[in-house]
């Protein structure tokens, strides 16, 4: 009897699987090259899936956009009448996200079902099967990654329906994690040679751990953070923040949005109410109608983001922090700010 539901699949087999997914009319989303970067886009031909590259480079923006788009209408209006909007939810396969991203979605689930069930997010979640790539390649982990420090794991399966990992040169290990994943595999496995195996991605964890530069554990910092709310050191660490929203917008778990009405050009009284990404890094985020801004300085806005991630969310929802350690915010920050460095530094545990 095999102990795990996993099998070995060759590179060719994986390509066949992707072709079958497309042939079965799933909408396939995977990291695609856009200039020098990778971004999640609709895949029309199997060759567009850049396997080698997606193992090595993380997408600039996270896959949250698949469920929580940068903009979407939530209702439409014509004169006095309002019309409900249903989000388009084609059956989707989201391929090639990382274990931190998959975990990020589980954290977002808690937010979008907390006081209100956000149908836009939830319906998309329901219609999507997630095929994650474990960070098992030599080059998957870079100097910004710190999932291990926030309770994550580069080989973890939580949040994924199927989990892929590398297995030698030209083969992969494919693990079935959920029933949803099993359904996808069953419907798309014709012509894909699967050789049963008793290995798991997690077997490689110890070897991968060595590749992390950022090793400090941040899972307990929520207890210490409140003491540092007014610390001068935190002000100094974040003084250079410019208040752009890159960190929040590229983060897999930042989820603030703004609601605005967008009148339709050339009409009178017709339009849509849309939900757009917003960020606590923006001065406008907390600015009151009368002009007063309770977060007057940029370092206060930066602090809010760090505290929400590492103290408020864990207090409110679970013991887990809202940061999954993907490192996107520090990779893209134009002035090299970095939540891991700032927090470890301020809490006096040294610096990576």
């Amino acid at each position, binding site marked *: 009897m095999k102990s795990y539901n996993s099998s070995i699949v060759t590179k060719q087999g994986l390509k066949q699987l992707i072709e079958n997914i497309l042939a079965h009319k799933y909408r396939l989303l995977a990291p695609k090259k*856009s*200039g*020098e*970067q990778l*971004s999640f886009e609709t895949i029309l031909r199997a060759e567009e899936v850049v396997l080698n590259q997606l193992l090595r480079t993380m997408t*600039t*923006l996270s896959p949250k956009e698949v469920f929580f788009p*940068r*903009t979407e209408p939530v209702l439409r209006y014509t004169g006095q009448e309002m019309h409900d909007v249903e989000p388009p939810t084609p059956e989707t396969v989201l391929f090639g996200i990382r274990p931190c991203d998959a975990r990020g979605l589980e954290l977002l689930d808690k937010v979008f079902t907390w006081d209100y069930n956000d149908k836009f997010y939830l319906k998309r979640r329901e219609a999507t099967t997630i095929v994650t790539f474990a960070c098992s390649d030599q080059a998957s982990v870079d100097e910004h990654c710190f999932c291990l420090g926030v309770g994550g794991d580069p080989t973890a399966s939580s949040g994924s329906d199927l989990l892929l990992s590398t297995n030698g040169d030209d083969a992969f290990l494919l693990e079935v994690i959920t029933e949803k994943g099993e359904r996808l595999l069953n419907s798309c496995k014709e012509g894909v040679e699967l050789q049963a195996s008793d290995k798991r991605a997690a077997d490689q964890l110890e070897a991968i751990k060595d590749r992390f530069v950022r090793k400090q554990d941040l899972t307990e910092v929520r207890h210490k953070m409140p003491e540092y709310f007014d610390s001068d050191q935190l002000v*100094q660490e974040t*003084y*250079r923040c*410019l*208040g*752009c*929203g*890159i960190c929040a*917008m*590229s983060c897999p778990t930042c989820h603030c949005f*703004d609601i*605005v009405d*967008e009148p339709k*050009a050339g009409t009178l009284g017709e339009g849509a109410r*849309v939900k*757009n*990404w917003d*960020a606590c890094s*923006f001065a*406008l985020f907390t600015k009151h109608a009368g002009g007063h801004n309770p977060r*007057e*300085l*940029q*370092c206060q806005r930066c602090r809010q983001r760090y505290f929400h991630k590492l103290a408020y969310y864990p207090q409110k929802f679970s013991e887990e922090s809202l940061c999954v350690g993907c490192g996107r915010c520090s990779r*893209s920050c*134009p*002035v*090299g*700010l970095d939540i891991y*460095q700032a927090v470890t530094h301020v809490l006096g545990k040294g*610096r990576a």
Partner: protein
Amino acid sequence: MNSIHEVREEARKLLEEKRVGMVIGYGKGKGKKNYPIFITDPQKVEELHFESDCFYNLAVYLRKPEVCSHGKLAIVVKGCDARSVRGLFSENQLKSEEVVMLELKCDAKGIGRDKCTTCRVKNPLTPEEKNPIDGEIAKILAMPMEERFRFFAEEFKRCIRCYACRQICPHCFCKTCIVEKSEPQWISSTPSPLGNWSWNFTRAFHLIGRCVECGECARACPVGIRLDILNRYLAKSVEEKYQFIAGMDEKAAPPLTTYKQNDNQDFIR
């Protein structure tokens, strides 16, 4: 100044003699990259560094309220950043007696996405005629209008409205940016094709003759939008039509912010 040692020495004197309240410069993380630092204690001037990855244009910090609250400021500048500071003087955003420039020679070998390879002020006061981006601009100008439209539509489609381009720009100093005005709403804040088109072009237009081509916006843009092409094209037009290069003369206001009876007008139709 030729070396960081001279800069440190000058910074120490300025702080000790209380001629400035803060020095803005580059510092080093442990064995890591350089980033902006802010020094108020003369004992700490040794933290100032200068290497090839000091591509940040620190002039952006000159307008931050927490920085301004320190009174007079000293700032480490390269040729490109000095243009920004002079630009701010020329637009009355700063008084020259309030800012001390600690100018450093730069070999323009930074790694900030093209910004150094296209630098024209390696020799700070005699800008080079040509800019390598000009070739790319010529290609775009040679495109039929629809194709040109598609080129920019493809670029702007990616914009997520993080406003990093604005936040990092020393010359985007408006207290309330036009995109934040809601009565009326001049520009849609939605990252839709229309909203992005209005945002990216309006920002470029507002910087005509004021942009010093420091390249920071294009470097910061997380989705790699070619803001450098837009900015360079507009700067080049101003140079041709008004013989004006932004940030060269701290007394000369940008042509589009002033009016003279004999202004060149024959291109307005």
